[in-house]
């Protein structure tokens, strides 16, 4: 074998990556496309060789993560039979000795707390949706509601880490990082993977979030999500310091590039050329990011659709609008987080507020994407890290109750990107406690998301600590084909 046959056989990009030139010459496109002028490669997006594994139905993802875990009883899992059982003890035959959190494990009684809120059948499909979510009801025919998601963790930190990285313990790459690593980028001037955070009105201080949730774990850090902040500097260090004009900055970049080129002539290290490119990209981002976050060009009709909060930076409504703007610009993976869904107590009050925060903007996002023809190839997911208990935490009164963490079932919805619209999948028992039909493990859900993107979750692996590691863990999981078009 000689070198020529080798390069003929091997995917050139993969070879370069393996041999270490990767980031320097070709592969940097995963965070940002290189636009490498001399490259004859057609695949400048930075996708791994062999990807996508099959024809994708979704090119991009928006994950509307409801942090703190919204109750399924007040949102999507209609249990009218519970009304009659109000205040009665949850039968042991339902609970079957399953573990409880330290917060209610010592509770002497487990009285059933039916939802205080009514449900309405929505859309042609007649999907039961809580009256707390009237706008969501109007898009019922675009949604695939899954009532049978289950997880392994019972506390927030491990559970949310599990949803986003496939492991309860920190250190693994997040889903967006996997996608960026596998598929590369679709756009020239913006990050591939962006995260956005908003704080709910329902609970003063929600559960904290962690950088690791959009981190790259053991993947190179260029795959980590870029957090878009609501401050006047949406990306860290984006703004040129006071006292340096754009002209001065341009001059600096030219000087740096000129001297770097001189160094390259001496050392032939391609990393230097990459660095020159990165400085140019940084300069471009200084224009593209502010343009992205500037919503002044949006019509009143669009703004009204998202609701009044859209005028306040940092709100869920604003973030939903920004998500759409990013999708328009081909950001690959947009990860929203809305905090405050942890209703151990005062659930009726807090839940109403949380739903008010999110209902209208979530629905507006779906409609907006749809109207622009983007929903077809954009997958949207709405959901939290686990469910809530059917029994009351704390005192059950006429006006008030709370619910503890419940990992055994919860509800989410998906829309667009190749998912069947207007369906309900999975079923829980009469107590909303155990799944009786079509269980979907969090890793099945994640496998499904990857599947829509054209990725076989079993084949997107990276060797870490001797193991071929994947987003969906070591045990067998499958995409939920039943819900796919």
């Amino acid at each position: 074998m000689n070198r020529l046959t080798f390069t003929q056989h091997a995917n050139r990009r993969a070879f370069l990556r393996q041999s270490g030139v990767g980031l320097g010459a070709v592969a940097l496109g995963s965070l940002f496309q290189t636009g490498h002028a001399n490259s004859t490669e057609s695949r400048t997006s930075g996708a791994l060789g062999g990807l996508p594994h099959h024809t994708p139905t979704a090119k991009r993802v928006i994950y509307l993560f409801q942090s703190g875990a919204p109750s399924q009883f007040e949102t999507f899992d209609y249990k009218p039979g519970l009304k009659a059982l109000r205040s009665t003890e949850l039968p042991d035959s339902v609970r079957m000795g399953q573990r409880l959190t330290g917060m209610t494990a010592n509770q002497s009684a487990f009285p059933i707390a039916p939802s205080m809120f009514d449900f309405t059948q929505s859309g042609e499909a007649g999907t039961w949706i809580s009256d707390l979510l009237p706008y969501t009801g109007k898009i019922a025919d675009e949604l695939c509601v899954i009532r049978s998601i289950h997880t392994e963790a019972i506390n927030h930190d491990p559970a949310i880490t599990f949803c986003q990285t496939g492991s309860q313990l920190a250190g693994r790459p997040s889903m967006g990082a996997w996608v960026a690593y596998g598929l590369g980028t679709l756009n020239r001037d913006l990050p591939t993977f962006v995260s956005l955070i908003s704080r709910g009105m329902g609970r003063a201080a929600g559960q904290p979030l962690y950088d690791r949730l959009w981190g790259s774990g053991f993947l190179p850090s260029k795959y980590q999500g870029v957090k878009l902040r609501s401050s006047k500097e949406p990306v860290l260090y984006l703004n040129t310091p006071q006292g340096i004009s754009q002209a001065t900055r341009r001059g600096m970049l030219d000087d740096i590039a000129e001297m770097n080129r001189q160094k390259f002539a001496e050392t032939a290290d391609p990393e230097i050329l990459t660095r020159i490119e990165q400085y140019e990209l940084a300069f471009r981002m200084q224009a593209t990011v502010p343009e992205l976050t500037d919503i002044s060009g949006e019509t009143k009709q669009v703004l009204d659709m998202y609701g009044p909060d859209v005028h306040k930076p940092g709100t869920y409504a604003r973030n939903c609008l920004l998500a759409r703007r990013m999708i328009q610009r081909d950001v690959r993976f947009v990860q929203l987080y809305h905090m405050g869904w942890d209703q151990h107590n005062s659930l009726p009050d807090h839940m109403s507020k949380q739903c008010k925060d999110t209902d209208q903007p979530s629905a507006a996002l779906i409609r907006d994407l749809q109207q622009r023809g983007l929903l077809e190839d954009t997958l949207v997911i709405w959901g939290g890290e686990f469910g809530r208990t059917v029994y009351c935490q704390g005192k059950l009164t006429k006006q008030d109750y709370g619910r503890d963490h419940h990992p055994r079932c919860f509800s989410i919805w998906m829309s667009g990107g190749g998912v069947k619209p207007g369906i309900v999948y999975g079923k829980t028992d009469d107590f909303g406690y155990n799944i009786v039909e079509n269980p979907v493990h969090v890793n099945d859900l994640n496998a499904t998301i990857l599947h829509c993107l054209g990725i076989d979750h079993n084949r997107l692996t990276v060797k870490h600590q001797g193991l071929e590691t994947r987003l969906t863990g070591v045990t067998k999981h499958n995409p939920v084909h039943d819900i796919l078009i």
Partner: protein
Amino acid sequence: MFPQIPIVRMTDFVTACCLALCFCMALGGHASEQSLPTVDFNRDIRPILSDRCFACHGPDRNSEASELTDLRLDVRESAVEHETIVPGDAKSSELLKRVLSDDPDELMPPGDSQTPRLNEQQIELLRRWIEEGAEYQMLWSFIPPQQAELPQTQSAEWTKNAIDHFVLARLEEERLRPSPRADRQTLVRQVTLDLTGLPPTLAEVKDFINDRAPLQQAFEKVVDRLLASPQYGEHMAAEWLQLARFADSNGYQNDFRRSMWLWRDWVIGAFNDNMPFDQFAVEQMAGDLLPKASQSQIIATGFHRNNRTVTESGSIDEEWRVENNIDRVETTAAAFLGLTIGCARCHDHKYDPITQKEFYQFYAFFNSIDEKGVYGETRGNVGPKLRVPRVGDEQRLAEFDTKINQAEQNVLETLAKFDPRESDWLDKLRAAVVSKPSLQPYLHLPLQGGLEVTPSSPAYSQVPVARFLADAPKWKNSLTGKSLRLVGRSGTYLDLGKSINPDRDSAFSYSVWIRLERGNGTFISRMDDSANFRGWDTLVLEDGRLQVHLNHHGDDNAIAVTTEESIPLDRWAHVGLTYDGSSLASGVVVFINCKRTTLQVEKDNLKDTIVANQPVRIGRRSNGSFFRGAVSEFRWFKRVLTVEEMEQLIAGDLAQPQGFELESWSETRLALLRELVADHAGGELQAVKEAEAELRKQRKEFDSQIPTVMILKDLETPRPTYLLKRGVYDAPDESEQLRPDVPAMFAALEAEEPPNRLTLARWLTDPTNPLVARVTVNRIWQRFFGHGIVKSSDDFGAQGDPPSHPKLLDWLAVEFVESGWNLKELQKLIVVSATYQQSSAVTEAEFRHDPENRLLARGARFRLSAEVIRDNALSIGGLLSKTLGGPSVKPYQPSGLWKELAGGAGEPDYVQSEGDDLYRRSLYTNRKRTVPHSTMSTFDAPSFEICQAKRSITNTPLQALALLNDVTYVEAARGLAQRMINIVSDNQVERLRHGFRLATARWPTEKELKVLLLALDRNLKTYQSDSAAANELLEHGESSVGDAVGPAELAAYTVVAGVILNLDETITR
């Protein structure tokens, strides 16, 4: 060194191609079939079998395939017995048939599996290996290293030490030549950055260039100086901190702050003292178990307390205790053995000979550490911990105690002379008893020898449930007659049911007499600890200060106030509290002896209900916080009482049994009254009391800042260890109790020694251990060449990379052990080699030839680490502080980052350090695991959550933005500008040459100088015409701005300095 993705390896056939490329065909492309070297099992065959076959036909006997066949391809006898391999006859070997088969039922690896089929090159290797006899070898890394003879080389004059012989022999095999030696300025810059993490000073550069001694000798002098400098230990520590997952926070949920800097200082000191690596390992793994362990040896055990700790309420203790220990197993294996043992947590290891049972035997070494899995909402260090007074601390405390004793004596003496009858306040009290109608409490619990409430209490008509489980209620005499004594145990408290039930919008007051016997306990509460401390209480702190809570959620939706004043120990005091229902901390007032206290507000963000699903308790909370002391005359009001009303209550109580005629009082009772009245006396008495209080406060403040560190300590009775089925904490296999032990593939532990951490540590560092020296040497090598001789420096198992220079690695490992595990000597050996000193400059063709520089035909060139990038810039800008050790610091970071994520929980705000602390080396930067410092992660520092042996090196626009715009670098540029200006008066060329040299250790070329001069000229014009912009630019950063030149000139130099700091060369070694 070149950019790389060290941990990311391709799994498809490219891997094998590259192996084939590197090892089978000679790199020059001159190899022919005839000259192919013999196939080497470890180098050529094991990677294929391990990657594609072992998962089913390997060490894991519980794999799915093992139900169908007992064929093992990791054991020769098994493979031969099954005729899968017929040595010498590839055609008859089932293995070859299977990998070549087109029949999906026959093909191996099976077509439906996640493992792709073998490519031609791999199959060819297998064929040749079988033809050559199919010899197996034990995995190279499990065979103890031996020092080989130095290989013969043709151009031996190039070599400087043994390293070069191995490297050159390999180069000659490949018909390559080493690169020339780098020039002196490059050498001194690289070696200084490599050994200390800082650039050389100009004087150091000049000294080396001007040294007339032979070059090698002069270079050795530099190396010796660097190894002796304290900055060496700091730089070494930075890497060890990463392996040890060191951080300043506990890592989960609210991610509370912890303080482990004492351990960090120990590490820096150990490296600087050149502590032998075996000792370094033993003290960290088991310093506490060493005979007569010193304080320093105990601090060293902080290594295995750096793991994350759970504080989230509601978590399950055993689950997280197990996770802590699994983390310790994985960290020990990764840091010392270079093994990825974690797979065996759930099942037998699929690649390396480690069974699941062996995993838990290893785990057993750590399973008796005296710790909890969940430290419910605890801030700061959690036990076991060591308090480490600094020099003079104990003496200071003793001085405080002496002074406090004197002050106390002073108070007593002054008090003895005091006649309460002269007090105006007493007259007031006396008048109050006579003139005012008595106040009607909502609930009144007199506790005068019985538990009944006063019949008219509207709140509660029944007798409260006395939960005196162990003891009957104890009654004591008191200032008011009788009192109930609480003995400070869990079962001793009074349950008042849900008699009083204020919410955050209800006004209330209470009044009670207490006599404290010991600090730290709750005398009244209605609080649910397990619901994030929902409810309200009054707690006595260790020093007698009172803390009042009104909580919805104890962390972030609560009022918490603490009195500055204390109640006395073993003396009666009256406590009164009023709350106005405003949901504000300012609505709380606390009285001690009817004197309004000064309150420190700790939390003031109550927004939701404080009603807890718990009874009112006198003597404790729902869990713990037991009060020890006596109480009497508890009264509750559903409104705010005035001071006068409080006084009226006191007066009434005092008058209670015997009236207010002091003449009839006993001397004891008079003495107590004297104290009470004394609080209102003013004059000398007040002065001496305040003096005493002030001293106590100072002592407490002083004591609280005496540092502590979390350490290892074993339980007296070991915890039993069982295999955990599927790795799950609540599925122990109790059929067999496991004894601590090491995997059977290794040499056994010393039989006479107890199976504990110390024996494990000694086993690890025994010279016969095949891995520890190799792993350590390899990691050190990685520091200088960008990656190790074994590229997968975190995996020396079957799935790891084979070494590029196996004999060199073994030679160094043996040398290292024989030198007494001498890290400085090892590093000196490396850097004085000709291999290290090669120039990194190459032609494009040479680069393409060996892009990763695995053959070492040139010097390494790679970007500096996150820590060094910043330290380098601070140093060049003349800002770096050289203070060694101490607590972590908080340099610049964009505001709001913590708050956005933590939501006010934990430690809500990042409070930037001041002065010198803004410019400390980056290893001292505070590490909050859930929100890593913004530039650290941008430049590839991990989040320090788990042990990591290696970092990737990326090149992204976010890095460009940080270096261009972060105030750290803008300020450093101004510092560099200042240094340029200061060097010479008014000579642009000299100034720019100087600045460039500060950053790169060399003079700029003519072409480079021209760029800089033009830049300066352009920027001078800009800022001369826009002085406002100049002033704005100079305002960045906290350091002072020099005035040697005008703002326009300084600004222009700052911009040019920014160019220099952003050069690829400046951030590359």
